[in-house]
């Protein structure tokens, strides 16, 4: 109790100098006379009582009047409500005067009590209001601080989340690219194996031819022309030379094909630092189809119907990625045996490239979301769902668009539309 008083006194310190006391506590005589000029009261009582008097508190202590106790005083009690607050003593006054004086003091005390209670109740309520105000203020400050901290934390979390998403997206793009490069590598390997195979076999034939020619060398050294001629014939050198020439020509063609594949491959491999080139998109389509055919020959029948296209300025590597991606999707939509049709044509000022399959098709409810990042209908783990998003981004970067038509169980057609000019 004392501690809390002290605390509240400290707390109020400068704002309010008063620590409230309970307004309803009982007051003693001294407290009730606190506002009265005792000097004047003493003078009045002396005059009323016709001489000296003593005013004592409930505990018998003198508050006003003579210091010396009287030998045989007359006494009148002073009450306030139910309490005896003190005594008025006089040596000179008679009974009536004394009780009248006491009654007058009681009247005064009553007024004083009213004043005290009203004042103290007032202080108590003001104090209370102020405390409530302080409390409200503190609560407001606290909630403001909480709100601030929360919003800061939220902002930090959002930043963090954005960072995570950005890096995840970059990783996924990267993974998608790697995946299509992997697909590509398989196709490339197949394409290159073929020419390398026959170049290799041609070369070993050439080795045999060279050693045959070497055997004729020793016959020629003898200088016997007739013997040399018959050996020449016997060895079939005329055919050998003819075949040798054809075989070298074939090998040169094969090497050219490898060179072409490798240069096409560059379109994929340096996607990031690609430069714009003027190309015939049909070449890109053929290349992508070859890539696919290498892997799906026994499952998919690939039909190309390529119309004449104007050459266009584009990033061929990027578009190769789009075509390969769409072709891979088409192949994946075919479960057992199926057909993929690739066609190209000019329509007005646009180039239309259509890739259709007769595979499983896409449910209508999924069509709208097809190009959304991370949307995939395939099993978890088999695709990032970024493939079509990347395709759309690339085509849009070329000023074009991708359209899709599909019917479940019937197949899907993707149309890549690019400006012709």
């Amino acid at each position, binding site marked *: 109790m004392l501690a809390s008083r002290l605390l509240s006194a400290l707390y109020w310190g400068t704002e309010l100098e008063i620590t409230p006391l309970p307004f309803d506590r009982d007051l003693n005589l001294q407290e009730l006379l606190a506002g009265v000029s005792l000097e004047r009261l003493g003078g009045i009582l002396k005059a009323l009582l016709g001489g000296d008097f003593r005013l004592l508190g409930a505990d018998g202590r003198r508050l006003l009047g003579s210091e010396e106790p009287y030998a045989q005083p007359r006494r009148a009690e002073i009450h306030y*409500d*139910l309490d005896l607050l003190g005594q008025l003593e006089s040596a000179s006054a008679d009974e009536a005067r004394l009780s009248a004086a006491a009654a007058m003091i009681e009247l005064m005390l009553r007024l004083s*009590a009213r004043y005290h209670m*009203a004042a103290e*109740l007032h202080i108590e*309520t003001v104090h*209370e*209001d102020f405390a409530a105000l302080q409390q409200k203020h503190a609560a407001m400050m606290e909630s403001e601080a909480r709100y601030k901290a929360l919003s800061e934390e939220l902002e930090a979390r959002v930043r963090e989340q954005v960072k995570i998403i950005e890096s995840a997206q970059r990783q996924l793009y990267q993974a998608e690219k790697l995946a299509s490069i992997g697909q590509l590598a398989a196709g490339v390997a197949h394409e290159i194996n073929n020419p390398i195979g026959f170049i290799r076999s041609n070369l070993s034939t050439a080795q045999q031819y060279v050693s045959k020619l070497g055997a004729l060398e020793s016959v020629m050294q003898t200088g016997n022309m007739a013997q040399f001629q018959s050996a020449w014939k016997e060895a079939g050198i005329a055919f050998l030379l003819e075949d040798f020439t054809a075989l070298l020509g074939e090998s040169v063609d094969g090497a050219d094909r490898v060179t072409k594949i490798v240069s096409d491959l560059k379109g994929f491999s340096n996607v990031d630092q690609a430069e714009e080139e003027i190309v015939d998109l049909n070449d890109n389509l053929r290349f992508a189809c070859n890539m696919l055919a290498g892997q799906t020959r026994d499952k998919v029948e690939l039909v190309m119907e390529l119309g004449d296209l104007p050459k266009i300025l584009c990033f061929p590597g990027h578009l190769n990625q789009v075509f390969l991606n769409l072709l891979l999707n088409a192949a994946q939509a075919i479960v057992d045996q199926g057909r993929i049709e690739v066609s190209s044509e000019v329509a007005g000022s646009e180039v239309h490239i259509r890739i259709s399959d007769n595979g499983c098709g896409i449910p209508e409810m999924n069509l709208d979301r097809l190009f959304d990042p991370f949307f995939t209908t395939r099993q978890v783990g088999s695709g990032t769902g970024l493939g079509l998003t990347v395709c759309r981004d690339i085509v849009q970067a070329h000023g074009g668009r991708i359209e899709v038509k599909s019917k479940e169980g019937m197949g899907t057609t993707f149309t890549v539309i690019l400006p012709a000019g």
Partner: protein
Amino acid sequence: MAEFDEVNRKITIKLVYYGPAQSGKTTNLMRLHDLLAPDLKGEIMTLETQNDRTLFFDLLPLGFRTPSGWLVKLKLFTVPGQVAHDATRKAVLSRADGVVFVADSQRSQSVNNAEAFQNLEENVQRVGMDFSHMPLVVQFNKRDLPEAQIFSENEIRQRWSQTPWPLVFSSALVGEGVRETLFKLLEQVYPALDRLFGLQQEHDVGQQAFISAVLGD
């Protein structure tokens, strides 16, 4: 909380008449002043009224002396019922040992009654008392008004049937039920005082003696 003053050999108990504006709290106190005849009875102190409405409080002191020579003093307070005087109401309510809730029986006053009762519950908690253990009597006043204007006893009893507090029907204006209300409150207040101060053991004042001494019969 009742005060125990060893020096002056005095126990002081505070009872508060609470309720909506104009329900008859001040009238209750005035009737009690007329009706009761305890050993000691002070004058009613009315601290400021304006057009009949209490601004601070009314106070009626009652008391008696125990056989052991102690003064038992009851201070009956009213609060101002007007909504605006909530700070005063709260200050008057603090340290109370028991409460009479004076409700106005008029149908038109049911919202005011409900709000005042909720305000009582809130303020009891704000001043650090325990509402569920606080002695409380609910008085429905102004029963003398025309039947059409007031809730019937049945309606009121039904509404309050789930509550633990005694209900008293009164007409403070004519003095009916006023004494019974205080009686019911003292019945609840006594056990707590007895526990705290040993009224029976130390002062030889049992419950009946206590109540008769306060009411003066």
